[in-house]
C-alpha cells in the first residue's frame, strides 16, 4: 500500500486492473485504492510479470503492506512457485492489544488526542505494553473510522498532517513583493496569439519560477529524515488544489524545472481537473518535493502555508493587485504579487530562504526564460 502523503496511514483496495500472469510496465496503473482523500490509481515502478495478488478488493491494510508480487525479468506463464518468500501483510486490525477501559497513553498522545477531539480510550495502543502513542492518535485521526463520510475523513487526515507539521517542524516565514509588470505584459502577448485551449495562466509562471529557483537553493527541495536534511533529485512541485466538496490535495507536477511552459500548463490543467474528479495517480500524491499554494483567486494578498511533511518548504502567492511602484526614479502603478516562503529551520535559514525568493523574483522579471 503506497504512502500517498504524510497524512495517510492505511488504504482500502478497491479493484485490480491486472491479473496474475499479466505483463506490467513501469508507470502502468494496476489497481485502485480508496484513501481518505479519494480513490487513487496505483502505478507500478518496475517492469515484469504480476505474479501474485496478496490483498483482495475490500481489504483495508496499513501503508507499507505488500499488495502484490511482481517478478522482474520473468516471462508470462512462469510458475508462481518461483516467487521469493513473501513478507506477511500487517493487519490494520491487529496492530496491538485491544483497547482497555483505561489505556495508558503518553502525555503527548493525550495532548494530541485532545487537540484533535478524539477520545483516547477509543484508540488501540501500539507502544510498549499497549501504550497509546502520538502515531496511534494520528492514525485514528486519519482513518480510524471507516463509516465517516469522505469530507470528515479528509478533514481529519488534514488535521493530523498539519498538527504533525506544526508540532515537529520549526517554521520560519519570509515574504516579498514582486512586480509583475513584465510577466503580465509577456503573458498578455503570449495569450493574444494563442487559441483558448493553449493559453497560459499566471499560476503556471509562478510554478515554473519556483521550480527554477529551487535549482539555485536546492536545500528547499529536500526532506528531513529525522536526523539530517536530504536533497531530492527531481523537482516535483505539488500544486495545492481545493476540492469542491471541501478539503484540498497537492498533486505533483513532475520535473517541473525541466518542462517547457506549455507542457507545464497542460500538466497543471490535467492534474487540477483530475484532482477534482477524484482520478489522481499514486505517484502524483507520493512524489511532491515542495508545495506551491495560491489564494489569489479568493482575494487574499498573502498566504503563509503549513509545510507538508516530509517536505521542507511551501511557497505561497496571493492576489495580483495594482500598487504604486518605484521604477526609474518615478512612482508608477504596477501589478504586484506577494510571494511567501514557509521553510523548515532545521534544514535551512532565513538567508537562504531570502535568496530563494530573490531568485523567484528574478525569473518573473525575465518571463522569456521560464
Amino acid at each position, binding site marked *: 500500500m503506497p504512502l500517498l502523503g504524510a497524512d495517510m496511514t492505511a488504504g482500502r483496495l478497491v479493484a485490480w486492473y491486472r491479473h496474475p500472469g499479466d505483463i506490467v510496465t513501469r508507470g502502468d496503473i494496476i489497481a485502485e485504492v480508496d484513501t481518505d482523500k479519494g480513490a487513487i490509481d496505483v502505478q507500478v515502478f518496475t517492469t515484469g510479470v504480476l505474479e501474485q495478488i496478496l490483498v483482495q478488493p475490500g481489504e483495508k491494510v496499513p501503508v507499507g503492506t505488500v499488495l502484490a508480487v511482481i517478478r522482474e525479468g520473468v516471462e508470462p506463464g512462469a510458475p508462481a512457485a518461483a516467487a521469493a518468500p513473501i513478507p506477511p501483510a500487517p493487519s490494520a486490525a491487529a496492530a496491538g492489544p485491544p483497547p482497555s477501559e483505561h489505556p495508558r497513553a503518553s502525555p503527548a498522545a493525550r495532548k494530541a488526542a485532545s487537540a484533535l477531539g478524539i477520545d483516547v480510550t477509543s484508540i488501540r495502543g501500539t507502544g510498549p505494553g499497549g501504550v497509546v502513542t502520538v502515531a496511534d492518535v494520528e492514525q485514528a485521526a486519519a482513518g480510524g473510522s471507516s463509516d465517516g463520510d469522505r469530507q470528515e475523513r479528509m478533514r481529519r487526515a488534514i488535521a493530523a498532517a498539519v498538527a504533525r507539521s506544526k508540532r515537529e517542524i520549526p517554521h520560519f516565514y519570509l515574504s516579498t513583493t514582486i512586480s509583475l509588470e513584465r510577466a503580465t505584459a509577456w503573458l498578455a502577448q503570449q495569450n*493574444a496569439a494563442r487559441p*483558448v485551449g493553449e*493559453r497560459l*495562466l499566471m*499560476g503556471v509562471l509562478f510554478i515554473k519560477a519556483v521550480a527554477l529557483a529551487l535549482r539555485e537553493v536546492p536545500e528547499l527541495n529536500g526532506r528531513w529524515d529525522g536526523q539530517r536534511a536530504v536533497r531530492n533529485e527531481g523537482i516535483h512541485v505539488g500544486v495545492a488544489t*481545493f476540492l469542491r*466538496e471541501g478539503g484540498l490535495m497537492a498533486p505533483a507536477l513532475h520535473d517541473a524545472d525541466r518542462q517547457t511552459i506549455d507542457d507545464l500548463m497542460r500538466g497543471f490543467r490535467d492534474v*487540477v481537473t483530475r484532482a477534482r474528479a477524484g482520478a489522481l495517480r499514486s505517484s502524483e500524491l507520493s512524489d511532491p518535493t515542495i508545495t506551491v499554494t495560491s489564494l489569489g*483567486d479568493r482575494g487574499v494578498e498573502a498566504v503563509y502555508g503549513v509545510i507538508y511533511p516530509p517536505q521542507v518548504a511551501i511557497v505561497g502567492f496571493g492576489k495580483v493587485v495594482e500598487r504604486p511602484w518605484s521604477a526609474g526614479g518615478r512612482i508608477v502603478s504596477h501589478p504586484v504579487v506577494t510571494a511567501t516562503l514557509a521553510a523548515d529551520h532545521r534544514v535551512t535559514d532565513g538567508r537562504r530562504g531570502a535568496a530563494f525568493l530573490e531568485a523567484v523574483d528574478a525569473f518573473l522579471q525575465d518571463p522569456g526564460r521560464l
Partner: protein
Amino acid sequence: MTRAELKNAVLRILGTVAPEADLTHLKADVPFRDQLDVDSMDLLNFFIAIDKELHVDIPEADYPKAATLDGCVNYLSARLGGQT
C-alpha cells in the same frame, strides 16, 4: 441559435465546470466569479468549453465582457451574428 438556446448552452457548460453550483439562483448581471466557487483554472476551462461547443474562441482581452451570464450571452450572440 436563439438567445434562449445560447443561455441554456452557457448554463450547461457552467454546470460542467462547476458541477456543485446551484445555477437556478445564478444572478445574470453578477460576475460568475463573485457568485460561484470558481477559480482562474475553472474560468479557463469554461472558455475552452465555449470554444469547443459553440465554436467561439473568446480572446483573453474580451474575458471581462463575458464574465456574467447576460454579458456572455450578449457577447456570443454578437459574435455568432446572423446565426442568432
